[in-house]
C-alpha cells in the first residue's frame, strides 16, 4: 500500500479536480482524508495497486496546477 499526500488551495473545485483524476486511476482508494489548514487543504490517500498504476495517478495529479505539492511513499512512513 502506498500513501499519497497532496496540498491544494482551500477550494472544493481544486479538491473536485483531484478526485476527478483519482477516479480514473486503476488503483483501489483504500482511504482518503482531507484536513484543513489556514488557506490550504491537505489530502491524504492510501492506495493499493500495481506500482505503475500508482505512478500514473501521482503523475496525473501532479499535472494539476492546483496541486501545490505532492509526495508519495510507503504507507508506514508518513501517514
Amino acid at each position, binding site marked *: 500500500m502506498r500513501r499519497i499526500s497532496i496540498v491544494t*488551495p482551500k477550494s472544493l*473545485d481544486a479538491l*473536485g*479536480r483531484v478526485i*476527478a483524476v483519482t477516479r480514473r486511476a486503476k488503483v483501489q482508494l483504500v482511504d482518503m482524508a482531507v484536513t484543513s489548514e489556514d488557506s490550504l487543504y491537505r489530502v491524504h490517500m492510501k492506495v493499493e495497486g500495481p506500482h505503475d498504476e500508482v505512478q*500514473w495517478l501521482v*503523475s*496525473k495529479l501532479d499535472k494539476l*496546477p492546483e496541486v501545490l505539492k505532492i509526495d508519495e511513499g510507503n504507507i508506514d512512513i508518513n501517514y
Partner: protein
Amino acid sequence: MVDKLVEVFRSYGIKHVLGIPGGSIMTLYDALYNQDIEPVLFRHEQGAIHAAEGYARVARRPAVVAVTSGPGAANLVTGLADAYMDSVPLVAITGQVATTIFGRDGFQETDIPGIVTPITKFVYQVRKPAEATAAFKAAYEISMVGRPGPTVIDLPRDIQASPAPSHEERIVVNMEKFIPPPVDEDKVRIAVKYLAEARRPVILVGGGVLWSGATPEVLELSKMLYVPIVSTLPGKAAVPHDFPLYMGPAGMHGRAEADAALANADVILAVGTRFSDRTWGRFKELQEAVRSGRVKLIHIDVDKSEIGKNVKPTVGIVGDAKEALRKIINLLDAAAVSNQKFVAWLLEIRKKYEEAMSNVADSTSGFHPWRALKVLRRAAPRNTILTTGVGSHQMWTEIAWEVYEPGSYITSAGLGTMGFGVPAALGAKLAARDRPVLCIDGDGSFQMTMNNLALVREYDLPIVVVIFDNRALQLVKQWQIYMYQRRIIATEFSKMPDFLKIAEAYNIDAVKPENYAQLESAVARALRNNEPLIVDLTIDSESDIVLPWVKPGDWLTSAILPEGMEVKLTYEED
C-alpha cells in the same frame, strides 16, 4: 470589472474574442463595444471553439472564446475535450448566473467547472471581483506553459457587473511545475550511445515537436545519422514532407513505409508523443521488445506523466524537445550510423504503394480521394494551411497530403471530432489572412458545422472547402464492410442536402467538377485570388476504402494494403 479584463486582453495582444453572447456574458461583450478587440460571432459555440483551435495552432498562442452560461458553455465541451487531447492552448470564458443564485437552478445555470474538470488543464470559477483578472492571467499563462492545453474561466454575471476592484487577488496555483526541467545529461548520454549503436534507428515525431519548435533539430539529427523519420498524425504537421528521410505518419491509416519503419526499428527515438493506440495499433509487441532489450526506446516529452504511461521506455527524458535534441546532436558522432539498406527498403515500400494506388485510382470511375489529394496539392501554394474534418477524407489526407511548412496541417487527431474542419479553417484564416486556407471535409463532417459558413462573408474569411462527398459516414461504413460482415446500418445518407445550394445560401461560389482538371483549376484560381469556394466532389462510396489500414488492436505489420501491393512489412536483414 469587465473593463479591467479587457485591459488585460489588450496587454496580452488579444485581437479577437470568438463566441456567441447571451444573458450571462453580455456585460463582458458590452465592454468590448467600440474597442480594438473584435468579437467574432459564430453560429454555434462548437464552431467558435474549433475555430479557436485553428487560430491557436496558426498563431501559436492561446485564442480566447467567450460564451454564455448553460447551453452556451455546454456547447464548448466537445471543443475543450478536443483541445485537451491535441494539446491546444485556448482560454474559454463562460458566463455564469449570479453568485446569489448559485445552486438554485437559475435560468441557464450549469455547473461548468464540474463538467469540464476532466478535459481542461485548468478551470477556475471566479467568486470575487478581485479574482477575475488574476484568474484570466493564470488561465492564459497555464494554457501555454509546458505542454499546452485548454483552460476555462467561469465568470458569474454579478461579478462582471461589479465595479473594478482596487486590488487583484492572487490565484494560488503551482505554475513552475510546467516549466520544463533541465534535460538530464546522463540520460542523454545513454540515448546517444543507443543511437550510435543502432542498426535500424527511427525517429518518431509527435505533436510536441511542433509546439517546441524542434523541427530543425529533428531534421538535423535525421541527416546526421541517416535515420528515417516517422510521425504520429499530429506530428505530421511538424515535418516537411519533401524531406527525403520522412516516411510519413504511422498507425491505423498511416503510410505502409512508416508502419514498417516503426515495426522493424531496433532503436526508436520518440519525441513529443503520447504513444496513442492509433499510432501503434497495440502495444504488446513493442512492450515485449523493449522489455527484452531487442528494441531500445528513448522517449522525450515535456510532460512527465507521458513517460511510461503506455510503454515503459528504456530511457525516459523529461524536458523540452528542442533542448533535448540539441544536446543529443552535440554529443553524437556524426559518422555513427548510416543504414542505407534499411532506408532503401522503406523507400521501396513507398514506391510500391504509390504504384498500387495509382493503378487503383486509374481503375476507379470518377474521382478517387488519393488522386484528388495529389491534384489539390498541385493546386495549392506551398504555404497553404490545410484543415480537415474527421472520417475517411481525413485519413486520406493523413496518407496522401504533403505538408511543406510546419504547422500547416490542422486536424482533430486525439478526439476525432467530426465538424472540426470548417470552423478550424475559419480560425486559421482569422489568424493568418495572408495565407491560403483549404479545408478537406467529408459530407458527414461538413454537415455538423456548416452553419458557420456565414462567417466567410461577414468577416471576409475566404476559405476553400472541398467536400469529399460519398454520401456516407464512410469510415464507419468501412468498418461495417470489413468487421461487421458488410451489415451496413445507419451510415448512408440520402442525396440531401444539395451542397451547391448550401453554398449559394451563404453567397459562396461553388462547383461540382467533372474531372481532375476542373478540380485543379477551380481550386487553384480560388486560392490564388483569395476567394471563397465550395467544391462538391462526388466520390463513389464503394470504391472509397482507405488503405493501408491497421485494424483496431492489430500490430503494424498486419496492415491491409491496397490491391496489387505485394510486400511484407517485416524487414529481413542480410
